[in-house]
């Protein structure tokens, strides 16, 4: 049994847990952080894009020594059918700035570095330790945790649950529901290694410039989902994710989808000749604003993916995780500095501060999107990409057909597939959900 009592215990050393532990340790609190992996990051999977602003708020000079891959100068969105893609590319020299806004990272390596900063700030970090249960007093207040080490209960004034999307502790303790199959996506991913120069040639890059490709369309076979390709220094992250309930309904296999995506004629040349070094999978919270659970209680707060704080529409998660971790920690520091107990009433300041941040504001803005995408997945992920692709081909192929005739064919194909009411309905619903 660890006799000492801590000011706070943080469960998990991912993005949110590290942000919380770092913030509290820097403010002089006595913090214990527990992580089940061999090292911070050994259990974590991400694309991954790092958003500089949110990390800067925690570690202003992170660029000096963080393991960053490439700063992003280009973003590609592809709408795909089985043989083609229609793309929007945005590239700007402005992103070659002194303090770039977005980087690609490799999560296992990044988390290890982030964790070293947490230790430097004075927190005690124990890896290879799975927290098995929350400890409560007779009134139900959370007073610590139990782990799979033989050291009984460890006590603290407050427990920060930063356990990620599949958080067992919070659900077992009935603080929140288990994620439902229609509220989480399963993503599978591979790491493809290639020489630096080859990657730069394949993606039209120089130096440390980077690019990301987000792809949707027939690659998800009518399920709600997206593919992604991120260029790192010497490897390419490639993956695809779809809502779990859709996998269940269709019987598609995740590796089958990934394989098809890799073999797509627009994708295959990018990874040609590569050596695969890892295959991973992870869930992503997709329920949005409406799926956010109770965020605090007597002796506990929940942050990051465990609280469903993930913006699936914008592919942002780690920045919401870091921000919620930091804000929860600041709230705890406030309560402590007033010498108040860590009760639900006092910890409710966390929710107030979070409501005022971009985290909740963004999720609220898109609160109807998850449902819309899910109930219309066939249209958005199968019908429209095919229609757009056919329209584009019709448009660019020169074959002596008068242009007016071509446009008529395109319009007819849309109306036949979705009807005027369907088209207007989809456009209206999309606009309203986006608003």
């Amino acid at each position, binding site marked *: 049994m660890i006799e000492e009592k801590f000011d706070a215990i943080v469960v998990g050393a991912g993005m949110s847990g590290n942000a919380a532990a770092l913030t509290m340790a820097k403010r002089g609190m006595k913090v214990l952080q527990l992580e*089940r992996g061999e090292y911070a990051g050994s259990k974590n999977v991400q694309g991954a894009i790092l958003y500089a602003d949110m990390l800067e708020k925690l570690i202003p000079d992170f660029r000096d020594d963080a393991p960053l891959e490439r700063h992003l100068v280009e973003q590609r969105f592809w709408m795909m059918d089985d043989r083609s893609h229609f793309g929007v590319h945005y590239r700007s020299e402005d992103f070659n700035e002194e303090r770039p806004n977005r980087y690609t990272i*490799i999560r296992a390596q990044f988390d290890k570095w982030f964790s070293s900063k947490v230790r430097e700030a004075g927190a005690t970090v124990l890896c290879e330790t799975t927290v098995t249960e929350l400890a409560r007093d007779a009134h139900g207040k959370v007073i610590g945790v139990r782990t799979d080490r033989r050291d009984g209960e460890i006590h603290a004034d407050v427990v920060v649950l930063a356990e990620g999307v599949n958080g*067992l502790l919070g659900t077992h303790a009935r603080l929140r529901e288990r994620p439902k199959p229609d509220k989480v996506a399963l993503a599978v991913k591979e790491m493809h290694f290639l020489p630096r120069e080859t990657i730069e040639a394949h993606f039209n890059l120089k130096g440390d410039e980077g690019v990301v490709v987000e792809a949707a369309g027939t690659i998800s076979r009518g399920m709600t989902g997206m593919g992604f390709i991120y260029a790192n220094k010497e*490897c390419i992250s490639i993956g695809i994710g779809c809502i779990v309930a859709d996998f269940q309904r269709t019987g598609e296999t995740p590796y089958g989808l990934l394989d098809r995506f890799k073999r797509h004629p627009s994708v295959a040349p990018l990874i040609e000749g590569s050596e695969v070094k890892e295959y991973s999978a992870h869930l992503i919270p997709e329920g949005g604003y409406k799926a956010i659970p109770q965020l605090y209680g007597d002796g506990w707060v929940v942050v990051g993916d465990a609280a469903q704080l993930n913006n699936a529409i914008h592919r942002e998660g780690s920045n919401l995780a870091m921000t919620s971790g930091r804000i929860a920690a600041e709230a705890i520091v406030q309560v402590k500095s007033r010498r108040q107990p860590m009760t639900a009433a006092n910890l409710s300041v966390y929710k107030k501060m979070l409501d005022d941040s971009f985290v909740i504001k963004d999720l609220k803005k898109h609160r109807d999107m998850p449902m819309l995408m899910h109930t219309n997945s066939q249209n958005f992920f199968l019908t429209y990409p095919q229609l757009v692709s056919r329209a584009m081909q019709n448009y660019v192929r020169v074959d002596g057909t008068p242009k007016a005739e071509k446009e008529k064919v395109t319009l007819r194909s849309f109306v036949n597939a979705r009807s005027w009411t369907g088209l207007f309905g989809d456009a209206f619903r999309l606009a309203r959900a986006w608003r």
Partner: protein
Amino acid sequence: MNVETSVRVEDKLFYNRYLVDVGRPHIKVRAHTKPSPQLLALLKVCPARCYELNDKGQVEVTVDGCIECGTCRVIGEPTGDIEWSYPRGGYGVLFKFG
């Protein structure tokens, strides 16, 4: 031949590092005679293909290649078909890149 059967998941798992906690599987399938639709779905949806049918037509799990994604938990735990916990600290999959 359809694409799915041509992908050998076993080969993919070979790239990964694991520390298997021998004799302490972190996932268990409830004894059954006829598998539920949820259990049958796991045969396909598990990204590491940990679930298989035995010759009696029952679903079995072998967790050695598990990547701890939690998908089977989300599907199979509510119905009581499976019991899911994390491997002991330090054991299980160890991502180098993640």
